[in-house]
């Protein structure tokens, strides 16, 4: 998915703005999708695993759900797409609030069109990494889900840095049995080394 063509999502209540921004992105070969309200945008948002790289350009001032509210809901869903908040001129408090809430960047109206394009390009680049990380995390979680109860307990022991003997003693099992579990864990987690296993589980926490 991270290799897919990027998609810019535009949320603005003003139709003319939506159309003109879409045209601007089209001129640099970027595909766009526009929404007149935060509600419509959130309703149309695909699940994370189906997301294409890209960015959300969110106008902060809209009737109904405001841009900031939409951003908060987005973050709550764990959407990895970077959000660019479009604020009014000199509206520093709102920009600060947006960044605190996890916005990727903000852009002040009236903006230079090139500035918008650059900001979006950076966001798209960041989105690819974020999507990749998210994909990895999902894969590890899927592998962890395959582990049995004993295998999970053994994995916890390994990650805690305990020797096989200690784990065998704690679980009241033989050392041989622990060794068998340990091999199964490495296989199911598709880890080639203990270090890789540790890194894998760390990112999924």
């Amino acid at each position, binding site marked *: 998915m991270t290799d897919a063509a990027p998609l810019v999502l535009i949320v603005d209540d003003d139709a*003319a703005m939506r159309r003109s921004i879409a*045209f601007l992105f089209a*001129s640099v070969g970027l595909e766009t999708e526009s929404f007149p309200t935060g509600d419509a945008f959130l309703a149309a948002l695909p699940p994370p695993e189906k997301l294409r790289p890209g960015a959300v350009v969110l106008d902060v001032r809209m*009737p109904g759900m*405001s841009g900031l509210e939409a951003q908060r809901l987005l973050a709550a869903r764990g959407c990895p797409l970077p959000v660019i908040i479009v604020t009014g001129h000199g509206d520093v408090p709102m920009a600060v609030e947006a960044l605190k809430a996890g916005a990727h960047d903000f852009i002040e109206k009236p903006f230079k069109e090139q500035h918008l394009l650059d900001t979006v390009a950076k966001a798209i680049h960041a989105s690819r990494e974020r999507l990749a990380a998210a994909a990895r995390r999902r894969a590890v979680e899927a592998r962890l889900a395959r582990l049995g109860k004993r295998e999970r307990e053994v994995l916890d022991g390994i990650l805690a840095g305990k020797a096989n003997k200690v784990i065998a003693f704690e679980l009241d099992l033989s050392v041989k049995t622990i060794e068998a579990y340990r091999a199964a864990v490495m296989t199911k987690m598709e880890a080639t080394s203990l270090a890789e296993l540790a890194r894998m589980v760390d990112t999924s926490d």
Partner: protein
Amino acid sequence: MTTYRALGAACGLAALLITAPADADDLRVGVLAFQGSERAAQDFDPTIAHLQRVLPQHRFSLVPLDLGGVTRAVAERSVDFIITNPGDYVGLEARFGVTRLATLESRDHSAPLDSVGSLVIAPNRAGHPVGLADLAGRKLAVVTASAFGGWQVIWREMDDVGLSPGRLGELIETGFPMERVVEAVRTGRAEAGVLRACLLEDLIAAGRVRPDEFVVVAERPAAGFPCRLSSRLYPDWPFARLAGTPPDLAKAVTSALLAMPAVDGRAWTAPQDYTSVHALFRQLKIGPYDYLAHVTLSGFLRAQWPWFLAAGVAVLWWIVHVARVETLVRRRTVELTREIQSREKAEDEARRTREQRDQFSRLGILGEMASNIAHELNQPLAAIANYAEGLTHAIDRGRGDAGFLRAGARGIAGEAERAGAIIQRIRAFVRRREAKRETLDANDVVRDTLALFETLAARRGIAVRVHLAPDLPQVTADRAEIEQVLLNLLQNAVDAMTDAAIDASRRGRGITVRTSRDGAAVKIAVRDHGPGLTADVEAHLFDTFFTTKPHGLGLGLCICRTIVESHGGRLWAANNPGDGLTMRFTLPAPAEPTR
């Protein structure tokens, strides 16, 4: 005339006698000579002669006196005895202590009489007075105003029926002899006359008056009295001694008098009770009771001075009180006038300040509008810039397909048009002009107004929802004025929604603008979820200069109502059942729809 001369002679004689020293054996008998000294001598000489005969050791002499002379003689004791009329006697008894020894008795009538009375005669004509009260306003003849039998006796009777002498037409004094009274009535000089009882009968007997010539007014018969009467009876003349006359002498004289035979119809009898004479004088406040008449003023004042003082003080207090109240009222009036003036001045001042503030506020509104306009225009301008930048990129990248380029160019044109429309609309709104009525679609007006307003509401975080009814009749209205009304109501709604007391969830419900059909009119409603109206505010909602906003004019709704009403519509406010307020106004549609 002869009477006067006779009186003058009597006076001279009396004066002469008074000055002469009285001899011890010389006993002087004073007599009231009201009909002249000759007549007095004629009447009483027989009595003197009798006394002289019975008491030869004394020398009796008769001293005729007038009324003043009697009083003087008694006061100076120049006489030893006095014969006078009952009225005078009562006075002397009171003042000088004279004592009656005998009362005169007349024997020339059918029965002996020791009493006197009076009667009032009037000509025997139709309409003659019947009672004493009928004498009011008539001329009454009397022998003299100081006569006892000739006037005062009748005066008392008149007083009893409430007729005062002042109410008589005139009191005519004829003088003696009493027959002159008859003459005055007969000639018409008087309408009635007072005579001593029995004189009328004497004159008729003498043939000098015809029996039917006169009538007797207020006749009252008295038992055993042979003559006609108009009055009570009083004792006849007394024979009295002075206080200093020796009792033995008095006793001797009394017995001599009582033993005297009648001469010319005159004799003396036992002394009568003169109480009735006293009563008369007391009632008329004359003679010894003269002071009673004067008592009425100075004496009364002297006797009743505490009351008068109290009354005087009360009157004085009242005057002071009235003066004080008057002064207070005047002062208060002045104060009030001043207060009213200063209040009017303050109101003028306030009005001026208000007008000034209005001016500033209008500028404030303009400022608000300007910022709104800037924001409004920003959108299409930004869009144009986007299109332009996009076109530039496309050209730079050699992506010159006609469809894409045309889309960009059309976008620019469209946004430029939109910007122009905004400016047009603002100019239409701002421009001052005569009211211009045109046929309008109310929904269009609402849409256009909201286009102006929405961004402003959005900036304050308030959403505006619109429900436009389809198939509304067209209305005839001034677009700018209706927009102004709508803007005002929207502004108020936003202000209400951003009230500090309104929480986010209520604020989130936003403002709803709704158009609907209301009979033959179009109704436009602006609903908010603000605090609504208190009864107090509602009562003054449309009052000029009434405002609840810290910097409000108190003009908005007032102007709105004026505008709506000038369109023949109605503007009113109503709290919502749930929360907030709905302002509604109607615009009547013309009878014939112009479609």
